[in-house]
Structure formats: C-alpha cells, structure tokens
C-alpha cells in the first residue's frame, strides 16, 4: 500500500520532471536556433573577412536559416498536445509565406495609399493634392503619353515580330537555330541591353567616322548622322525598340508553341480549297491562336506599363522620355517627396490591375504549366 503510494508519488514527480524538461527543451531548442541565426547576422554585418568568404557564409546562413526555421517550427508544433498540433501544423507551412507577403506587399499597398494623402514628409494631410499633381503636372502628362506609346508600340512590335518570326520559322528546316538566336536577348538585363543600344545609337559629328551602327548605316546612305537619344520625340521610339528587341523572343516562343497546336488537317483543308498562304494564316491560324496572342499581349502590356530600367539607364528620363515608373523613382529618391511618390505608385497599381486581372483569367483558362 505504502509502496504503491510511494511509487505513484515517484511517477508523479517523474512526470512533472518530464513535463518541465519538455517545456524546457521546447524553449531551449528554438532559443539555440535563434542564437545561431543572430550570431550569423552579426558576423555578416561586422565582419571584415574577404568578400568571397562572406558570400559563402551569407549563402549558407540565409538558406540554412530558412530551412532551420521550418524544421524548428515543425519540431515545436509536434511537441504540443495533439489537438493543438493538428490546428497549428498547416500554419507551419503557410505561415511564413503569409507573414512575408503581408509585410512586403499587402500592408505596403495600404500604407502607400495612406501616405499618398500626405505631404512630402508625410506630416500634413493634403487631401487629393498629390493625385491632382499626378494627373495635371506637365511632366506626369508627358509620362502618361510616353507610357501609352510604350504600350502600343512596344506590345505591338514585340507581338507582331514574334508572330512573323514564329510563322516563318515554322516553315523552315532551321527553325531551332533562328528561334534560339531571337530568344537570346531574354537572358539580358535591361541595363545590359541599355549599354548595347547606347552603343548602337552612339553619335559622332558628321564627317567623322561613325562608331554607332545606326549612324554608320544612315551616313552610308548619305543622310546626316543624328544624336538619336536626344532627338525628340522620336527618341521614345528608339528606346521602345530596345524593349521589342528584348521581348520578341518571349512572344515568339509562346506563339510558336501555340502554332504547333493548330491541327494540320484544318490547314490542309484550307489549302486544298485553294486558299493562299496569307489567307490560311489570316482566316485559320490567327483565329486559332487568338487567346495566346491576347495572353502574350497582356503580359507585355504590363511590362511596358512598369518599364523603368531602360529609361533609367538610357536617358534618366531626360529629353522628354519620362515614364510613370521613372517619375515615381524620382519623386521618392531624388526629391524625397513620399506623398507624390506614393500617389504615383497607386496610379500604377490602378493601371496594372485590370490588365493583370484579365491576364490571370486567361491563364486560369489555359492551365499554366
């Protein structure tokens, strides 16, 4: 009797010990993980080690840290009572993503909206003044017109050229070679492309030997060389040519994939009925791949709307080439006017939203991957 009581007390003490131990470990393990990550962070911040070593440590710390956080969070949740574990487990998986999205996109949108009603230092409420600026300032109006030009010429050019090349290449034996050359610029950054094209547009006074390809061609035909980048209003077109050069490959690849999906029986039937090749393309192929053309167009429209890097490296928005995104960057980081900068960002969201919504709907219909 006494023995069994003792035993029970003993097991009670043991259980308590185990419980305390468990809680202890549950706190201890995350704590150790946190300390390790913190030490890594301090090392990276303060260290004067050679850059290559810092780079390696940074990469291991960053990637390992995320994996470690997932592991520890899961370990911790599994230590809890079963019904709590069940409820919390899904959030181990979706929680980090939701937290980061909330911090980086969801709340910033609301905060920018809020800031857009305040002055440059975000101190005094100014009502709609920033939006009135955004829709009346001559520079802003210039950027709207330019962006419209980017959308029309950039999208039309890329999709048009992409379609032409895809159609032609489809009829050639060397299809793969042609396509992969046209596609190559996709891998090049806007900044890199900026350098390439500045060089093509390079200008030297008449009489000297031209080093820019375009002026060399122009002078070859006996025309005066031009400073293309400062030549209003045509300089916008020369900037847009860069976008077309970059994006045609993308349009071509997607359109080309769609072309392969057009049933050959329909095309053959058209040909047997005596339709010319152009007629076959216009009346059979184009209608068949129309949704693809729309998807590609909306994607490039969004790129054109948000275009920034090309303008930033080529002209910095000078010579009448300002676009919405470059205006926003200027307001924020050159003039430190957070009110106007935020208002322009909101205008950009409003402009992108309908196109994106349409794009997503199309995308859902065709099932991505």
């Amino acid at each position, binding site marked *: 009797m006494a023995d069994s009581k003792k035993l029970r007390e003993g097991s009670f003490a043991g259980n308590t010990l185990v419980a305390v131990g468990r809680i202890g470990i549950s706190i201890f393990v995350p704590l150790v993980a946190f300390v390790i990550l913190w030490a890594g962070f301090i090392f990276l911040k303060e260290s004067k080690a050679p*850059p290559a070593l810092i780079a390696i440590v940074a990469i291991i710390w*960053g990637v390992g840290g995320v994996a470690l956080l997932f592991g520890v969070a899961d370990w911790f949740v599994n230590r809890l009572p079963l019904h709590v574990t069940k409820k919390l487990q899904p959030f181990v998986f979706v929680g980090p993503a939701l937290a980061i999205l909330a911090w980086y*996109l969801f709340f910033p949108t609301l905060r920018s909206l809020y800031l857009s009603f305040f002055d440059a230092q975000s101190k005094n409420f100014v009502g709609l003044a920033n939006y009135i600026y955004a829709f009346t300032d001559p520079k802003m109006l210039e950027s709207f017109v330019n962006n419209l030009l980017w959308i029309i010429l950039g999208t039309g050019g890329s999709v048009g050229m992409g379609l032409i090349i895809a159609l032609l290449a489809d009829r050639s034996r060397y299809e793969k070679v042609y396509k992969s050359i046209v596609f190559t610029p996709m891998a090049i950054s806007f900044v890199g492309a900026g350098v390439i094209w500045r060089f093509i547009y390079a200008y030297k006074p008449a009489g000297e030997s031209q080093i820019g390809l375009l002026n060399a061609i122009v002078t070859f035909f006996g025309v005066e060389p031009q400073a293309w980048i400062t030549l209003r209003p045509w300089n916008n077109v020369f900037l847009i040519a860069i976008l077309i050069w970059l994006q045609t490959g993308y349009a071509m690849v997607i359109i080309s994939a769609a072309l392969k999906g057009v049933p050959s029986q329909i095309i053959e039937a058209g040909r047997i009925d005596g339709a010319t090749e152009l007629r076959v393309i216009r009346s059979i192929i184009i209608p068949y791949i129309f949704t693809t053309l729309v998807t590609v167009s909306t994607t490039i429209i969004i790129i054109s709307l948000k275009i920034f890097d090309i303008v930033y490296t080529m002209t910095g928005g000078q010579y009448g080439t300002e676009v919405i995104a470059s205006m926003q960057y200027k307001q924020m980081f050159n003039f430190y006017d957070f009110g106007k900068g935020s208002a322009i960002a909101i205008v950009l969201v409003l402009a992108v939203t309908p196109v994106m919504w349409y794009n997503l709907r199309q995308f859902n219909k065709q099932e991505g991957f």
Partner: protein
Amino acid sequence: MSLQKKKQWIYIINAILIVLVLIWALPIIGLFVSSLRPRTEVLNTGWWTVFSNRTGLSFSNYKQVLGGSRYTFVDAAGKTVRASGDNLSRAFINSLTVTIPSVIIPLLIASAAAFGFAWLVFPGRKFFFTTVVAMLVVPLQIALIPILRDYQKIGLTGSYLGIWLAHTGFGLPLGIYLLYNYISTIPRDIFESAFLDGAKPMVVFARLVLPLSVPAIASLAIFQFLWVWNDLLVALVFLGGTSDVAVLTQRLATMVGSRGQDWHLLTAGAFVVMVVPLAVFFGLQRYFVQGLMAGSVKG
C-alpha cells in the same frame, strides 16, 4: 503549288529569316567584338571594321573592368578606406551572394505554402489563397517606400538579408500560385497512403512533394534567377549605392553614368553582367522556356 515554286518560297523564307536573325544577333556581336578592341580603336572606328583588319584584339579591357584600380588609402578621419575603380569582380561576388539565396529562399517558402494550400485543411484557406493571388497585381514599386522605412528602423538597409527578404516577398505570389497549380495535381492516393502510414506533414513535404515537384521548381528557379540577377530597381533601393555591396547591374549603371564614352570598358562590363544568364540560358534552355511560359504573369 508546284514543287519548284515551293522550293523558291523556302529560299525566300530563309532569306527573310536570316535578315531578321541578323538584326537580333548584331547588337550582341557588336558588343562582344568591341569589348575585345583597344580603346583608341573603339573610339575611332566602327567595330565592323575588325573583319577587314584584325589587329590588337585582347582581353585587356576585361582585366581592367574586373580588377579595377583596387587600392587602399587613409582618409581625413584616419580610417583606411578601400577605394575601387570598376572592380566588377567584387560586384560579381555580390551578385551571386544576392541571387542564390534570393532564388532558394522564396522557392522553399513558396513550395511549403503551396503544399499547405493544396493538401492541408485549415480555417481561412480559401481566403488566404485568394489574397495571395490578388497580390500578383501589386507592382513592387508600391512597396519601396514603406519597406525602406521599416528597414531604416530596424537597420536592414544595405544588408544582404534585407534584399533577400525583399526578393522573397516580391517573388512569392507568382511562386505560390504556380507551385500550387502543380502540387495540387499530384494524385491524391500518394498522400493518403503516406498519411495512413502515419507520416508527419513535414516528412510528406520533404520526401514526397519536393522531389515530385522538381520540374516546376526548376523552371521557377530559372525564372526567379533571371529576375533577380538582372534586377536594378530593388538593388538600387535596398542595397543603396555603396560599392561594398553593389551588384553587377548597379555597377554597370554607375559606369554608364561615369564612363559614358569609354566604350571599350562599358562593352566589356556589359558582357560580364550578361555572361551568367547567357550560360544558364544555353545550358538549361528547355527549363528556361517552360519557366517563361509559366511565368508570364510575374507581378
């Protein structure tokens, strides 16, 4: 159409294609040729003259932009300062340091979230997923000011962690969306038998879902890689201008400003920036194309 006429057409088509392809290739060829020529030549004659007069081609421009003038001096406050010319090799390391985690971290987080949304049951699942998809609409410009303010408060400006998280945040909506589409099509029985065997979700995720999703993850990785490596705006805002952490695109943009006419260096610099994406492009073209097709809605 007679056979002969058909043959004629094929010649015409190939001729047109060759002209078009030349238009696409010439800018890159011109860049590469110029990067090999000495300064005086680049500034005085067109690069196409090389084909008639092939002298003086060398990699010395690359030496100059990669090494730059790296030297140390003591500034007014008595601190030793390391100043650098172009020093693109440092920027190259920085670009790698920024890019590798900025690709892996969002993919880890996005695939975990996609698995959670696709196969785990929890309250608010639909609502949260819709919100994630809605975030595709938001251009990242909108986040720049608020996030920059947060960073200034907690001291993340100019740090790698800051830019990794930024790229993670901006890449997540697309990543989750596409991976969800892929992971949700994995046959249900695979999960059921695993769960019946008592496997924990983390084990199912690590042992089953990740290996099965490799094709989707690979094409997304390439897409995110190109996006981060070629990005200028996010780097400008969150890394700031110090050359200690500046990435290749930033350094190149600075060179355009400071060395506007030194075409022999600019062309070499541009080629250094392009070389990794081009290698990825030629090495992994198949995945690359898949990635682009899937990524056509990047926000």
